[in-house]
């Protein structure tokens, strides 16, 4: 299968405490997964808060959800899935020793990530225009969201901004990591034998994708059949 006959026990990227590149990679992957477990619990607190309040105020959550733009949210879901595809393809490019393709797919991933954040910025700006940002100026025009429902709707929008905001922050950090990988990729640091930084960044990027896969139906699609 592998035409390369380089001794993986004496690869320049192999750190002295590991027996082989495989062992080194498994160790890194496991460490990255341990971090992702803490990330699951980090987002998990917000998901738990969502579930508790959603159970408490199901009708107000559905009415408030109706104010989110399903088209933009759906578009962003497709964009993010596309960025996961290009991320996976950049690792494939490393696995088949195609140096330039690694860089091209990393840049494609960053471009799609930036599109996602741009759409998100447009959505946030719309929420400010329509007075749907929790706080002193929260004033939805929707008759379903008046009186007590207005306070409860603020909880929905607080969760919306916290959850999508924390997600967007992860995207921004991800873009920074991807940017840092371009130069070493271009210089040929990653190949079929060693591409662990790409692999771990991929794990992070796909994890952020999974968070959005749950955020989209939970936040945007609740009110789709209401009204």
């Amino acid at each position, binding site marked *: *299968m*592998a035409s*390369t006959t*380089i001794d*993986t026990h004496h690869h320049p990227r192999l750190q002295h405490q590991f027996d082989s*590149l*495989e062992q080194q*990679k*498994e160790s890194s*992957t*496991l460490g990255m*997964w*341990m971090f*992702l*477990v803490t990330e*699951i*619990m980090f987002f*998990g*607190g917000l*998901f*738990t808060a969502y*579930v*508790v309040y959603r*159970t*408490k105020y199901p009708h107000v959550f559905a009415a408030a959800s109706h104010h989110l733009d*399903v088209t933009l949210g*759906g578009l962003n*879901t*497709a964009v993010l*899935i*596309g960025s*996961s*595809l290009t*991320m*996976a*393809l950049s690792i*494939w490019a*490393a*696995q*088949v020793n195609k140096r330039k393709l690694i860089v091209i797919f990393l840049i494609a991933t960053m471009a799609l990530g930036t599109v996602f954040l741009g759409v998100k910025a447009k959505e946030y700006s719309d929420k400010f225009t329509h007075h749907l940002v929790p706080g002193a100026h929260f004033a939805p025009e929707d008759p379903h969201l008046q009186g007590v429902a207005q306070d409860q709707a603020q909880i929905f929008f607080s969760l919306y901004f916290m959850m999508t905001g924390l997600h967007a922050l992860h995207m921004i950090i991800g873009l920074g990591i991807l940017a840092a990988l371009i130069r070493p990729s271009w210089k040929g640091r990653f190949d*079929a*034998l060693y*591409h662990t930084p790409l*692999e771990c960044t*991929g*794990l992070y990027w*796909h*994890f952020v*994708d*999974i968070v959005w*896969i*749950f955020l*989209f*139906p*939970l936040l945007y*699609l*609740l009110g*789709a*059949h209401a009204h």
Partner: protein
Amino acid sequence: MDHTDHTGHAGHVSSPGFYIVIFAALLILTFATVLVARIDLGVMNDVVALGIAVTKAVLVLLFFMHVRYSTRLTALTAVGGFLWLAILIGITLTDYMSRGATMPVPGK
């Protein structure tokens, strides 16, 4: 675990075509969840939406994140993370959903 071959130094390599198939499946499921949400199915709306989301997440985990081809220890760590999330949400809900549903104390 026939896919964990160590003959190639890069481990398992999925083809670009395979990644595109997974990508297409994820897009189709996204369209499906948007369409189903427009129909009023009552409680089933949530069940279907979460079912599709879990399916999409599993596709990403297994194939994009290579859990399908990783060591059992890594797979166990991934499963463990989601298991603990289920405990967090599950046990919290046993409290919130049972409030006001206490039984009268006998003899009082």
